[in-house]
């Protein structure tokens, strides 16, 4: 069920306490099979531990560049990815590790990409922000805020052009909804009746700027209205609510050939990136983001436990086996070779070019 709780606008502080005061309105576990529920739980734990390990490796300088994690957003990630069918396509922003794994990419190769190694999903050319895999139809993490929206719209155009029945999901953050590409893409998607679901992960901040500071209409799911795109909001802490809402919109996009907008409230536990101590957050905001009450894994784990589906031993067992698997991914990455420098010029053009200046720094343009 979609949670359509309506914040009244106003200051960041006011809305933060409003959110915190919110009761968990999720519908429980429904009649979902225990093994499916446990699998979701395991996937969420996997994303959590993978990201923790990633943060560690980053701090040890095993991983370079920027590094944006999904910590706290695991229910949203897993809910969205289990709603998306294998044949459907995914575009994300730079906060993409969890999505890449959720879409079916091999975590070992995701980790190898973070390490910049040749077994990485993008052969070490992309890094944290640019996971890509044709096979599992994860069509990329993108580092320019909003840059993925026109691309995802175009992918949906190609599907529609060919009369296919795939759907594109385009993930983004709340801060993305104010950039030109957002407006242009939603408009085009509706004009051309494209099968795409735009998903806004509302973690209430783009870096340090709150939604209320950046969006004149902070109820983001309403902002499709200008384009006659139906929007819904879901509690992103609730994996089943996310899955069900997303599935429903995905199937409607598929059958009705029209775009939808989904906003998922989610809690980014840490700073914007690994190195960001999030000093801009007030104590209240920090508590809110990290509170047990908002931790999707704890919420789901307790529900499962109450329903007698997850014992303490099972939880420990899942934690331990995930830990081993994540360690294996890190080992794999550690041992994967660095890309050979001789491949430096391999990926500039898909069609070969004559006369391309393939020179290393300081080489002459015209070698005799």
């Amino acid at each position, binding site marked *: 069920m979609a949670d359509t709780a309506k914040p009244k606008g106003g200051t960041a502080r006011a809305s933060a306490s409003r959110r915190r005061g919110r009761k968990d309105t999720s519908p429980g576990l429904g009649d979902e099979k225990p093994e499916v529920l446990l699998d979701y739980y395991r996937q969420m734990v996997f994303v959590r531990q993978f990201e923790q390990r990633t943060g560690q490796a980053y701090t040890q300088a095993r991983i370079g560049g920027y590094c944006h994690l999904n910590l706290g957003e695991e229910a949203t990630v897993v809910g969205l990815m289990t709603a998306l069918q294998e044949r459907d*396509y995914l*575009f994300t922003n730079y906060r993409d590790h969890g999505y890449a794994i959720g879409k079916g990419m091999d975590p070992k190769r995701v980790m190898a990409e973070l390490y910049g190694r040749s077994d*990485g*999903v*993008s*052969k*070490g*050319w*992309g890094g944290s922000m*640019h996971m*890509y*895999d*044709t096979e599992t139809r994860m*069509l*990329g993490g*993108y580092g*320019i805020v909003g*840059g993925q*929206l*026109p*691309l*995802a*719209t*175009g*992918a*949906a*155009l*190609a*599907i529609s*052009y060919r009369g296919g029945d795939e759907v594109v999901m385009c993930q983004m953050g709340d801060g993305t909804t104010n950039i*030109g*590409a957002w407006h*242009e*893409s939603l*408009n*085009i998607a509706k*004009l*051309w009746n494209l099968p795409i679901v735009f998903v806004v992960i509302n973690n209430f901040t783009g870096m340090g700027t709150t939604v209320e500071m950046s969006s004149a209409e902070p109820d983001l799911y309403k902002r499709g209205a200008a384009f006659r795109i139906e929007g819904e909001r879901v509690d992103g802490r609730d994996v089943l609510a996310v899955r069900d809402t997303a599935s429903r919109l995905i199937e409607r996009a598929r059958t009705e050939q029209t775009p939808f907008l989904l906003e998922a409230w989610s809690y980014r536990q840490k700073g914007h990136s690994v190195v960001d101590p999030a000093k801009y957050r007030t104590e209240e905001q920090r508590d809110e983001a990290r509170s047990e009450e908002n931790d999707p894994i704890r919420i789901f784990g307790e529900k499962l436990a109450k329903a007698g589906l997850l014992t303490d031993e099972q939880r420990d067992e899942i934690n331990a086996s995930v830990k081993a698997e994540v360690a294996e991914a890190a080992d794999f990455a550690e041992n994967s070779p660095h890309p050979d420098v001789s491949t430096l010029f*391999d*990926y*500039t*053009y*898909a*069609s070969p*070019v*004559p*006369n*391309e*200046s393939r020179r290393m720094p300081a080489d*002459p*343009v*015209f070698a005799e």
Partner: protein
Amino acid sequence: MSVITYRQALRDTLRAEMVRDENVLVMGEEIGVFEGSYKITEGLLKEFGPRRVKDTPIAEEGFVGAAIGAAMLGLRPVVELMTINFSLIAIDQIINHAAKIYGMFGGQTSVPMVIRTPGGGGQQLGATHSQNIELFYSFIPGLKVMAPSTPAEASSMLRAAIRDDDPVLFLENLGLYNSKGEVPEGYAEPSNDNVATIGRAGVTREGSDITLIGYSRMAMVATQVAEKLAEEDISVEVVDLRSLRPLDRQTFVDSVKKTGAAVICEDDWLTYGIGAEIAASIQEGAFDYLDAPVRRVAMAEVPMPYAKPLETAALPSVESISTAIKETLSAVGKRVG
């Protein structure tokens, strides 16, 4: 051989490629119902329908990006940007995405698309509508930038651009659309495979005294200069760059080795411009052969004025280029007519 306009060559070739390949579609502002601001897409909507001829909203970033995404899934969109000036709205999609997607994902997906767009001054369109900013795109690895100067080039190069697996900026020039030239028989046949090699410059006129290098409209002007100076017994070799990235340095460097002198003419601003790259390449590749410093004739470095005499003065002309050639030759004591 028949003689047709540059516009006609583009239109017929575009149509032929759409007949040949179902994956080719055209997108842009006013290209369907309006049949194109410059009528390159005339008749296409009637023939192919709105599925393959897509009128877009005025949202350059949105539809250029959509073409990129569609290309990632194997379509071959040919986007028309009304003029290159508006490509600035889409520059993030072109530079950060079209150019990078093949590389940053380790070669897993390419972006087989074409952006056709006219540019250039001389039409009294003022500062924001008279620019040649191909430099921005020529600077970027991952993009290919083509700038044909004749109807025959327009045809074989557009065919090459559409069939190429990389994103191609295909630069037209308002001053060329009505220019005429010979095209080979069958140029408009879907089965035609007269496909230019992207990244090959051409020596379009042989000469022995000096090399004159240009592209797009300036390659056409360069030919006029050479014809005029021939009457004064100055033998000018003309090199048409045709492609700005990849850049065929060898062809113009070989020509300079032969003539010993070079003038570059370009329709854009001088400082940091394409002529600067050409001059540097000549210096690296043919320094020992040069009898005189390389000269560049470019647009005046001002925002383009509207008033006709000012605009005319701002643009390189047959006269200003001829003068530069004569001065270069006299500097080394070569005869100057």
